[in-house]
């Protein structure tokens, strides 16, 4: 089908490329791509796919735009703060290219809705910020036979891989399980704003290649990117015959939600809810509990519990001696992930019965003291 004069003008730079041309541009116009997560990765990916003329673009995100998103989530403007991301993103993409169809899915992806959602699209891009969502998306793509372009970021580093059904390893082949101690999302660990711009743009590149057939998709390879050293890595990943979802005898045959935390707490660790801690502190024991806040100094400075000491997780192994062996430490972080890792370190160092504050300072702010600032 030959493009209209308006399409010829808009996509002229694509039409000039022999690898894309009119046929490739037509395929782009027919393509249905779902971007899961309208965040740092999803923003550039969706913008470039819209600009490229991807005919149907779905945007899945159940969150609202926050001011702290705008440092990297270039899909949104300051005026969008407080709006549903999926809807604000839909408007922005439609303004960029009114000739495509953009569908806002303002919801959180779950096992209960993933089948119906993915059935409407040909390719899925994963730009989520939770490992549980990554495994749900991967498993659903394998089971429903949808190509998946997956990227993830942390601080100054990113990684990218593409899965095509029947042609190579899936995300679960690369990483069969998530970390026992969460590695931290962007809010917890920080992220260079431009980093998801690089990785999200690579995701869009892969999607366009898959749609048009140009080049070689990134199958069976994991690309890593280190912004500080400006270094890309390229590693071969093989399909695992024992992969739980794409292996020879899969045990996961239906998309499923992964309960969080994904891994059971180690033996010897105790859990404490924020309301239990509130009650404990209110008892006014002669020797109050030892509160060890393992967040970074900047996070601690913004707001912390009275009498808490700050030992960032990265320094904890060297500073465990500061924790008196006869006192039971209660480890605290933003949402309970880093403090769980701290408990594991303490257990490995034979500090008896470390306690993890479940939900961390976010839960404290939500359930006990809404005036405390949590970065």
């Amino acid at each position, binding site marked *: 089908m030959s493009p209209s004069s308006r399409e010829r003008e808009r996509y002229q730079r694509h039409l000039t490329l022999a690898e894309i041309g009119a046929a490739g541009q037509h395929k782009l116009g027919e393509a249905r791509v779902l971007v899961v997560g309208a965040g740092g990765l999803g923003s550039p990916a969706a913008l470039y796919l819209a600009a490229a003329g991807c005919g149907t673009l779905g945007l899945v995100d159940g969150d609202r735009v926050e001011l702290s998103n705008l440092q990297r989530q270039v899909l949104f403007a300051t005026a969008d703060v407080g709006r549903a991301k999926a809807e604000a993103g839909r408007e922005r993409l439609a303004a960029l290219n009114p000739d495509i169809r953009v569908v806002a899915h303002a919801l959180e992806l779950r096992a209960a809705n993933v089948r119906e959602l993915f059935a409407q699209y040909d390719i899925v891009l994963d730009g989520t910020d939770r490992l549980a969502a990554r495994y749900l998306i991967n498993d659903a793509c394998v089971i429903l036979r949808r190509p998946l372009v997956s990227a993830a970021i942390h601080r100054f580093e990113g990684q990218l891989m593409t899965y095509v059904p029947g042609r190579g390893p899936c995300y679960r082949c690369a990483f069969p399980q998530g970390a026992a101690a969460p590695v931290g999302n962007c809010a917890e660990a920080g992220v260079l704003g431009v980093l998801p711009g690089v990785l999200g743009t690579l995701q869009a590149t892969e999607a366009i290649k898959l749609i048009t057939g140009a080049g070689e998709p990134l199958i069976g390879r994991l690309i890593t990117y280190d912004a500080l050293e400006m270094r890309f890595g390229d590693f071969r990943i093989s399909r695992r015959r024992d992969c739980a979802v794409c292996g020879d005898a899969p045990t996961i045959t239906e998309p499923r939600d992964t309960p969080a935390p994904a891994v059971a707490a180690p033996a010897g660790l105790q859990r404490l809810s924020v309301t239990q801690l509130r009650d404990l502190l209110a008892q006014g024991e002669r020797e109050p509990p030892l509160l060890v806040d393992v967040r970074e100094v900047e996070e601690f400075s913004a707001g912390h519990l009275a009498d808490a000491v700050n030992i960032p997780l990265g320094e904890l*192994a060297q500073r465990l001696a500061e924790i008196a062996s006869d006192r039971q430490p209660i480890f605290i972080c933003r949402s309970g992930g880093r403090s769980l890792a701290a408990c594991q370190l303490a257990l490995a160092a034979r500090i008896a019965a470390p306690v993890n504050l479940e939900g961390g300072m976010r839960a404290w702010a939500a359930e006990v003291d809404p005036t405390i600032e949590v970065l």
Partner: protein
Amino acid sequence: MGCTVRIASPLRSYTAGAASMPARGETLAEVLAHIEQHCPGIRFRMIDEQDRIRPHLRLFVNTSEALELSAAVRDGDTVHIICALSGG
């Protein structure tokens, strides 16, 4: 001479932010033991109590994946620690 170990971003809190560090050892086990001496606690984040590589990590010696701690490491090699990232 020894090898170079490239550290995944989530583990750099153990290396004072260093992206790579020199190490010695003829096997992956020896290399990880060496960096553990300088970065206490880092090995436990990569290797479980049964000496298995944790499933959220991939270890490569140069471009070859190392599936066992007995994998050989030679002078001049680069050991890559790659960790599943979750941020988006």
